[in-house]
C-alpha cells in the first residue's frame, strides 16, 4: 500500500499536524550547554514558539529575536542581527548562540553566514555562532530539529584523535526519554555524547536564584570530539532515509560509522538498540536490564487479551508514530490510521515494515496530513483509541474514545516532559497505560460496574 497524501497539494491546511522548522531548531539549541536560541526574523515567531514550548515543557524557554521591522524587510536585517547578537552576549554571556533564520529572513535572501562571520571577526572571544536556515516552507519542526543537529555537528566537529566514546542522536524525544537513553548507554560502560541533551535544560529543578539559562546540555567540548567517536547511533527511520543527517555527515567527513536504528519504542526496537550497544561495548546486556525486559514480556502475557484486535489511530511526529506502530503491532493492537504532518517518502514504508501482524486491508497511512483530514479518515475507520499529543483531544472527544497522550505537544496535562516512551521501561509504561485505559473504559461503561476485572 502506498501512502496517500492527505490533501491534494495546493489546497488549504486545516488544523495542522505540524509546526514550523525554527521550533525544532530552538529545541536543539536549548539542549546545548550555555547556548541561547536566536531567531533571525520578526519577533512574533520567537514569541509564539516560546509560548508553545513553554506550554509543553512548563519551563522557561528564552529565545531571542532580531525583531525585524518594516524597513529591515526592505534594507535587510544585518544591523539588527548584529545588534541582537551583541545584546544577547551582554545579557546571557553564552558560549554559543544558535541562529535560525525564519521564513522572512530566508525569503528576503539575507546572507546570514557572511553577517555572522563579520560579527565573529569583529568580536574575538565572543560566543560561537551556529547558523541553521529554517524556513517553514521547507519543512516541519522535526525537519528543523534534524537540520539543526546536523549544523551543530558541522560547526564544531574538528579533526580529533579517535576515542572510544559513541555519539547518540536521539531525535525529538522527551527529557525523560533522554535521561533513560543515557542511563542505558552508561549501563554498557560506554561514554556517550548525546545531541541534543535537554534532559535538564527543559526539565530542570526549582531555582534558588535567577539563572541566565538552565544548567545542563551537551558541552561544546563534547561536540568538538564527536568527529573522533567510535560510532554514531542515529535513532529514527525518517531522517536516516534522507542521508543528509549529522550522522551521515560524520561518516562521510570523519569516517565515524553510522548505525541507523528506529526509535527504541516497544520490545523489538529496544532489542535492536540494546543489541547495538552490546556490539559496540562488547559487553553483555546487564542483568537488571534483562530483568526489565523479562517483566515486560510477562506483562504482555498478563494483559494480551484486553488489547487484542483493538483498533488504534495514531498521529504526530513521524518517527514516534513509526515506533508506536511497532509497539502496537507486537501486542496485537491494530493500527488502522498512522498519520503525520510531515511529508516524508520514507514514512509509509517504515510504518509498513514495523507491522508484522496487523491486517493491512484496514490500514491507512497519511503523510502531509492535517487534523481535519485525520479526523475525516478516523470517522470512517472507527478506532477504539487514539494515540497522539494534546492535539488529538478534539478527535478523541468527538469519537467518544480514550486518548493516550504521547509525544509533543502536551498542553492539557502536566508532565509532558516526563513521559517515557523508549526502552523496555517506556514500553512497560505505555503498555500498562494502554491496558488500563481500555479496562477503565470497559468498567466505566458497564452497567454492573465490576470492581474486579
Amino acid at each position: 500500500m502506498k501512502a496517500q497524501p492527505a490533501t491534494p497539494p495546493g489546497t488549504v491546511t486545516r488544523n495542522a499536524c505540524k509546526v514550523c522548522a525554527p521550533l525544532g531548531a530552538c529545541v536543539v539549541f536549548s539542549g546545548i550547554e550555555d547556548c541561547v536560541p536566536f531567531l533571525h526574523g520578526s519577533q512574533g515567531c520567537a514569541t509564539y514558539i516560546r509560548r508553545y514550548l513553554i506550554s509543553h515543557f512548563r519551563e522557561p524557554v528564552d529565545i531571542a529575536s532580531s525583531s525585524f521591522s518594516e524597513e529591515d524587510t526592505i534594507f535587510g536585517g544585518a544591523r539588527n542581527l548584529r545588534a541582537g547578537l551583541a545584546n544577547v552576549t551582554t545579557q546571557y554571556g553564552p558560549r554559543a548562540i544558535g541562529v535560525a533564520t525564519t521564513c522572512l529572513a530566508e525569503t528576503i535572501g539575507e546572507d546570514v553566514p557572511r553577517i555572522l562571520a563579520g560579527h565573529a571577526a569583529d568580536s574575538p572571544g565572543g560566543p560561537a555562532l551556529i547558523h541553521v536556515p529554517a524556513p517553514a516552507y521547507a519543512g516541519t519542526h522535526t525537519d528543523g530539529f534534524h537540520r539543526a543537529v546536523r549544523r551543530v555537528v558541522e560547526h564544531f566537529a574538528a579533526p580529533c584523535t579517535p576515542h572510544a566514546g559513541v555519539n547518540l542522536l536521539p531525535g525529538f524525544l522527551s527529557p525523560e526519554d533522554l535521561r533513560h537513553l543515557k542511563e542505558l548507554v552508561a549501563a554498557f560502560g560506554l561514554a556517550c555524547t548525546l545531541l541534543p541533551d535537554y534532559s535538564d535544560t527543559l526539565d530542570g529543578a526549582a531555582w534558588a536564584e535567577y539563572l541566565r539559562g538552565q544548567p545542563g546540555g551537551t558541552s561544546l567540548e563534547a561536540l568538538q570530539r564527536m568527529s573522533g567517536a567510535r560510532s554514531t547511533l542515529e535513532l529514527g527511520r525518517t531522517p536516516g532515509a534522507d542521508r543528509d543527517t549529522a550522522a551521515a555527515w560524520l561518516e562521510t567527513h570523519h569516517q565515524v560509522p553510522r548505525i541507523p536504528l528506529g526509535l527504541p519504542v516497544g520490545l523489538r526496537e529496544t532489542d535492536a538498540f540494546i543489541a547495538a550497544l552490546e556490539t559496540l561495548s562488547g559487553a553483555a546486556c546487564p542483568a537488571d536490564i534483562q530483568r526489565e525486559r523479562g517483566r515486560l514480556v510477562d506483562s504482555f502475557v498478563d494483559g494480551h487479551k484486553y488489547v487484542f484486535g483493538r483498533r488504534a489511530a495514531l498521529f504526530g511526529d513521524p518517527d514516534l508514530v513509526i515506533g508506536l506502530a511497532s509497539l502496537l503491532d507486537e501486542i496485537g493492537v491494530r493500527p488502522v490510521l498512522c498519520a503525520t504532518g510531515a511529508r516524508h517518502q520514507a514514512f509509509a514504508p517504515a510504518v509498513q515494515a514495523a507491522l508484522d501482524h496487523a491486517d493491512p486491508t484496514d490500514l491507512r497511512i497519511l503523510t502531509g496530513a492535517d487534523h481535519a483530514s485525520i479526523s475525516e479518515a478516523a470517522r470512517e475507520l472507527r478506532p477504539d483509541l487514539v494515540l497522539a499529543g494534546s492535539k488529538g483531544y478534539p478527535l478523541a472527544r468527538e469519537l467518544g474514545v480514550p486518548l493516550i497522550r504521547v509525544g509533543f505537544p502536551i498542553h492539557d496535562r502536566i508532565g509532558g516532559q516526563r513521559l517515557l516512551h523508549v526502552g523496555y521501561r517506556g514500553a512497560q509504561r505505555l503498555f500498562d497505560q494502554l491496558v488500563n485505559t481500555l479496562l477503565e473504559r470497559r468498567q466505566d461503561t458497564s452497567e454492573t460496574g465490576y470492581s474486579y476485572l
Partner: protein
Amino acid sequence: MIQVLEQRRAQIHRKGETATPLRCDRRSVAGSVTQRACAFCGSRVVLYPIADALHLVHGPIGCAAYNWDIRGALSSGPQLHRNSFSTDLQEMEVIYGGERKLKQALEELIDRYRPKAAFVYSTCIVGVIGDDVEAVCRQVARAKGIDVIPVASEGFRGTKKTGYQAACEAAFKLVGTGDTTGIGACSVNILGDFNIAGESWIIRRYFEEAGMEVVATITGDGRVDDLRRCHGARLNLVQCSGSMTHLAKLLETAHGIPMRRVSFFGLEDTAAALYEAANFFNDSAVLERTRDLVGREVGRVYPALKKYREALAGKRAALYVGGAFKAFSLVKALKLLGMTTVLAGTQTGSPEDYELLREICDDGTVIVDDSNPVELAKFILELDVDLFIGGVKERPIAYKLGVGFCDHNHERKIPLAGFEGMLHFAREVHATVLSPVWQFVPRRSRRSSASTPSREIISPSKNPAAVEERKGLA
C-alpha cells in the same frame, strides 16, 4: 547581579525616583527576549472570537499553527473560529506568489463551511512576496457573495497594537451594513471584551438586568450580523483600551456614537462602568435598577472577600500584562485584597497610561514597558514578591523562582470579569499565594531558615483565617 540592557533603561521607572516620562511605544530592542508578540497576534486576538466568520491565515504554517484553539474565547453557537486554517505556503509559492493558493483555499473553505464572512490575515512573508491579497479577496467575495475582508496584519508592521488597529479597520468594514430597526434608546455596544471563559455573558446579563440593551459584544461571542448593526447603539463602552479604541473612534466619527472607557474587572470598576452607562442615558428607571444591581452584587461579593483579604493582607504582587487599563484595574483589585503592587508593567502602554499608573501606585513601585524574562526575574527577586500576574510566557519565570502565579490573559479559562469575577480572582490569588508548596522551593526554604522570618509563608493549617476559608470553600 542581573543587568538591564543599556538601551532599555529609559523603559523602566521607579515611582518617586524618576520624573521624566517613561519611554514606551517603540519596537523591541533586538536580541532582547521580548514578551511581546507581533501585529498578526494582535489582529488574531481581536477578531478571533467572531464565531461565524472564517479566519484564514495566509502565510507559512507556523503563524497559524501556534494559534490553534489557544484562547479561551467562548461562543454560544458556531465554533468555526476555533479552527486554524492556513494557506501553508510552500517554497514554490514563496517564489512565484501565493495568490492562486489563497484563492483556492478561500473557495474551498467557503464552500465547505458556509461562513457569514471571511477574514484573511496577512503574515510577514506575504508582505514580502507582494501578493495582492485585496484583489483576491474582492474576487472571491464577488464569486461567493459574502464579505471577504483582508487584515493587514503582517507581523513586522509592529507590535500587537498595530495588529489591533488593522483588526479594527477590518471589523469596521462590516459595520453599518445591517438593519438597525428595533434598537432602543438605552442601548450599548461593549467593545474589547472577548468572552474569555464566558465574561461577555456575565457583563451582558448585568446590562440587561439594569434595563440597557446590548446590541453587540465586540468581539466576545461575536457574530458577523451583530457587527453589521452595531452602529444602531447609542453608546460604546470600551474595555481593554489598547485593542478596541480605534474601532470606537471609527464608530464615533462615522456614526456619531460617543464612547466611554471602562473596565469590568474588580468591584469598583465594574460598578463604575454600569453607572457610567446609566448616567449617560439619564433614565431614572435604569439608574434605579443599576443601583439595585450594584448594591445586591457588592453586598453579596464583598463579605465573601473578607476571608481572602485577611489571608492575603500585606502580600506583594508584581504584574506584567498586555494593556494598561487591565493594569489599573488589577492594582485596584489587589488593593481590595489587601495586597501591594510592587511592580507594574505592560507590553503596550502609552505615555498617558504610564502616567496614570504612576498615580495609582504606591511610592517605590517599579513601572516597566515591554520587559523581558531577565528583567522580570530581577524584579521578582529584588522586590521579593509573593504573586506574579501575567500570561503563559511569564508563568515559568515565576514558578522557577518560587513565586505564586495568576494568569490574566486570553488563554485563561476562568472568568475574572464582573462582580463574581472578583471572587474568582480572589480564589485564584489565594490558591497560589497560600499554597504550602512554596515552603519547599529553594528561595523560600532558605528564607524561612534565615533570622528574619517576618514574611514567611503562612501555612494554611496554622492560619485561622485560611482554615475558616477552606471550610467556606468546601
